[in-house]
């Protein structure tokens, strides 16, 4: 259990985000946000409750809500579109999720563990998912009729009449230079540090991958220079 000082630090980090004042302007407890919230229908989650806890500076219950409740939000932003006060409960949840990660909260680690392969794909390729991830083995609940034509995935992808889409391990072909630029963004904005806090093993795999891609790019650059000589 965290001490009050730790909980206070987390709360102050949430309040300190520059978006906080955009997202929270007051609350009448009208409940329109919860009435239109998809997650409120299936989870013990209410956007109105999140807003109220923050609005009333309820430091301990804010910390409690960060254990599970904030991860129920589907991020549809219906609440934000509907709030008469122009609050964005979904936006507040995003700030809270970022803070949960910054503080390496165990609950965040638990929630995100099954999401690892998506993070791996995104951080290394800039694509969120790829055709080879969407196979019946990964999604048995999507049924046997997941595709309407049988065939080799590579051939089926080649039959898409756009050059950029004829891939299987990325959604589209991303140039090597583009990927390397993206790795710089991850490094300079602290995304790789967040990843290391959340999942050290995943971070190691990603770091190796990035090193390899950078080497590949350097070699390509050298080759180009060689051609120019």
């Amino acid at each position, binding site marked *: 259990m965290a001490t009050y000082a730790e909980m206070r630090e987390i709360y102050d980090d949430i309040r300190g985000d520059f978006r906080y004042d955009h997202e929270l302007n007051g609350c009448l407890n009208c409940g329109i946000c919860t009435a239109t919230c998809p997650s*409120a229908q299936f989870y013990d989650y209410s956007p109105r409750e999140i807003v109220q806890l923050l609005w009333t500076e309820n430091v301990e219950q804010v910390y409690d809500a960060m254990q599970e409740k904030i991860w129920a939000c*589907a991020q*549809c932003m219906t609440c934000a*579109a509907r709030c008469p006060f122009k609050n964005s409960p979904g936006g507040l949840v995003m700030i809270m999720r970022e803070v949960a990660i910054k503080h390496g909260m165990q609950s965040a680690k638990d929630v995100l563990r099954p999401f690892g392969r998506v993070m791996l794909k995104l951080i290394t390729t800039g694509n969120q998912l790829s055709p080879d991830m969407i196979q019946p083995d990964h999604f048995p609940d999507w049924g046997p009729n997941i595709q309407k034509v049988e065939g080799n995935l590579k051939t089926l992808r080649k039959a898409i*009449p756009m050059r950029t889409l004829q891939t299987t391990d990325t959604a589209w072909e991303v140039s090597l230079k583009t990927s390397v630029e993206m790795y710089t963004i991850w490094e300079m*904005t602290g995304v790789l540090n967040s990843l290391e806090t959340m999942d050290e093993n995943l971070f190691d795999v990603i770091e190796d991958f990035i090193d390899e891609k950078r080497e590949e790019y350097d070699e390509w650059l050298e080759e180009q220079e060689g051609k120019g000589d």
Partner: protein
Amino acid sequence: MSTEQIQGIAGHGSFFQPTHLGAEEAAKATDWVRKHVDRRTMDLGERMDDIREHMWELEKEGEIIVHRITDAHKPVEVQTLFGWTKKIPTIQLWHHKSCGQCGNIPGYPTSLLWFMNQFGYEPGRDYLDETDQTSCTAWNYHGSGIGNVESLAAVFLRNFHQAYVSGKQHGHGLGHFFPLVHCGTSFGNYKEIRKYLVESAELRERVKKILGKLGRLVDGKIVIPEEVVHYSEWVHVMRNRIASELQKVDVSNIRVTMHAACHYYKMVHEDAIYDPTVLGGNRTAIGTSVAQALGAQVIDYSTWYDCCGFGFRHIISEREFTRSFTMNRKIRVVREEANADVLIGNDTGCITTMDKNQWIGKAHEQNFSVPVMADVQFAALACGADPFKIVQLQWHASPCEELVEKMGISWTDAKKNFEAYLKEVEAGRIEYLYNPELALGGH
């Protein structure tokens, strides 16, 4: 426990007590809420800033460069939520792809490019599809919280800088191609980030350092687009030309329902398109408007405003939420209440969610289904596009064959032709929408 009881208690805290109101009394008690959530609301317009005005000021002060929509982009003006004007470029477009669409629903971008070709657009001059782009990375951000405003802003500016300079390698000037965003989440995310960038000098300074390191500044400045434009807005402004110049199939017997993506019209909602001639102006016009222009029967339904249940992380690792929500609040309603022949959408996650999660409903005796596809795929079918080669319906799990047959197109024949075409593909004889070299910077 009944569904009603579960829905009533979840999310309302332990103090929740059922009211035991009758259906009529409950409807009366919540009437004002329903009126508020089910109608277009205009009352916030006066209190809201138009961020685009601040962009022009920043440009005057020498802080940023605004990537302009010029006459060369042949823009069409439309009205957004508060009656503000938005310019939609119709030509010289840089296709900013969607990872979910390209990975999972490739008929989305292929139908869109097919339309551009049908209008006589020349690839490399009138549009460009290239490899120098990443996704917006916002799916991961909304799902996991890994990422931050700075990383999202840097990705946004990097991609849009590439759009700004992409014409050069094809012999055009700076700003020739204007970005056309395919994904709903990218569209919402980029607009949100644009707002933060315009409002926060500190954020601009921080990302400028990153963009500088990447060589992605122009005259030492960041480039921000005049408008963030979604592909469904292009389809919206082209709808009458699509119907009058290209339509081949009568769709007046087809009952169409629309699911508009939350991130299209609920994020930065002041920028979504509304039109008084489409669903009374109470719903965003995109998607519905093209079905209407094609002469289909557009059916409104009671859960129109609901999310699809995608949830970003949920569709991957809490799928019971995603499939329960989509089956109960979307598929069941469009099937049983609207008796729809098709449910069309304008975004990646929604189509995936609603298309893929129908089969599992059988486990709970939810034995209903409806074909699900994008607005642009439906329009392409109506204009005679091949259901497999162009509309790429082979990747869909929902019963799209039922819609195709009802439109008078033989699914069996089209499938046979496609299977024969796969042999050609294996032999290296591939039909492209554009010269594949263009994707890599060639001519």
